[in-house]
């Protein structure tokens, strides 16, 4: 049990380090509270954006927290891909440059999994292969307004 935990943890941690570096240029790492008995403690995230001093996770900005959380999700995806991902406005805190980084990361990941991403941001919509339009009709009913090939 402890061994299978460490197999997953070490693998995900390696992916997290490289994806966090790719998304924010800094150094990220998953840290266990108790390496002897991982189940007796929790797991924290050490996330240090490029050229910055390490801060507590809670003190990071909204955009920095989003990139850290997404790096963790992509690291899990690398380790054990799910067949599909459904993300609802994951880019809401991100500035234009970071939306582009996440969009190109999804583009890359979409080679081994399906990504369905609700977004209002242009860089995300432009990076997708298709866009589904949704609109509300007169009688309170949502309808699909079309499918656009990008």
């Amino acid at each position: 049990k402890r061994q299978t935990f460490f197999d997953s943890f070490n693998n995900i941690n390696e992916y997290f380090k490289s994806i966090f570096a790719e998304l924010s240029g800094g150094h990220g790492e998953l840290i266990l509270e108790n390496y002897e008995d991982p189940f007796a403690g929790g797991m924290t995230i050490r996330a240090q954006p490029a050229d910055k001093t390490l801060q507590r996770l809670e003190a990071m900005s909204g955009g920095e927290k989003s990139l850290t959380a997404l790096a963790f999700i992509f690291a899990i995806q690398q380790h054990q891909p799910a067949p599909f991902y459904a993300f609802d406005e994951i880019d809401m805190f991100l500035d234009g440059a970071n939306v582009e980084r996440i969009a190109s990361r999804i583009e890359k990941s979409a080679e081994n999994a399906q990504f369905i991403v609700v977004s209002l941001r242009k860089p995300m919509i432009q990076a997708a292969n298709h866009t589904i339009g949704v609109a509300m009709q007169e009688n309170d009913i949502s309808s699909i307004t079309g499918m656009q090939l990008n």
Partner: protein
Amino acid sequence: MHIKDIEFENFKSFGKQVRIPFFNDFTTISGPNGSGKSNIVDGVIFALGLSGSRTMRAEKLTDLIFNGNGSSKGDNKGIKSARVTVRFDNNDRCFPVDYDTVEITRKVKQTESGYYSYYYFNDRACTLSEIHANLAKAGIRPEGCNVVMQGDVTRITEMTPFERRKLIDEIA
């Protein structure tokens, strides 16, 4: 394996019947505020039983049944049930069953005294735990990070260290 299409029937703002096709790549869903985008993600969570701690913004399951203008809530003719079907392309046999397409359907039906909720796996009625067992074989877990609801993106950085470690436990 990927989602080929999702079919809604009187689920939230998707009154009547609507089928949304998907491709096996990167698709965005866009549209004005209140048009129904998040309801599509709620539909996936509803049909696959992934809600766990997520509420789909409903207090009880019958809140998910379409109640817009066309539903004439007033008299008995009100719409009494909602259905969501998710169709997967199973050519790679991620679901260990010998079908090229796997359909997972969930219905909720309102009755005089309460409501019923049914699950179907390829048209055969089954339980939520059977659905979970099948989904787990294909790499889809109820508390998995593959579905992120609106406003939830920074949840992983705000949960306790224990909760965060548990995400790894489930995968191991």
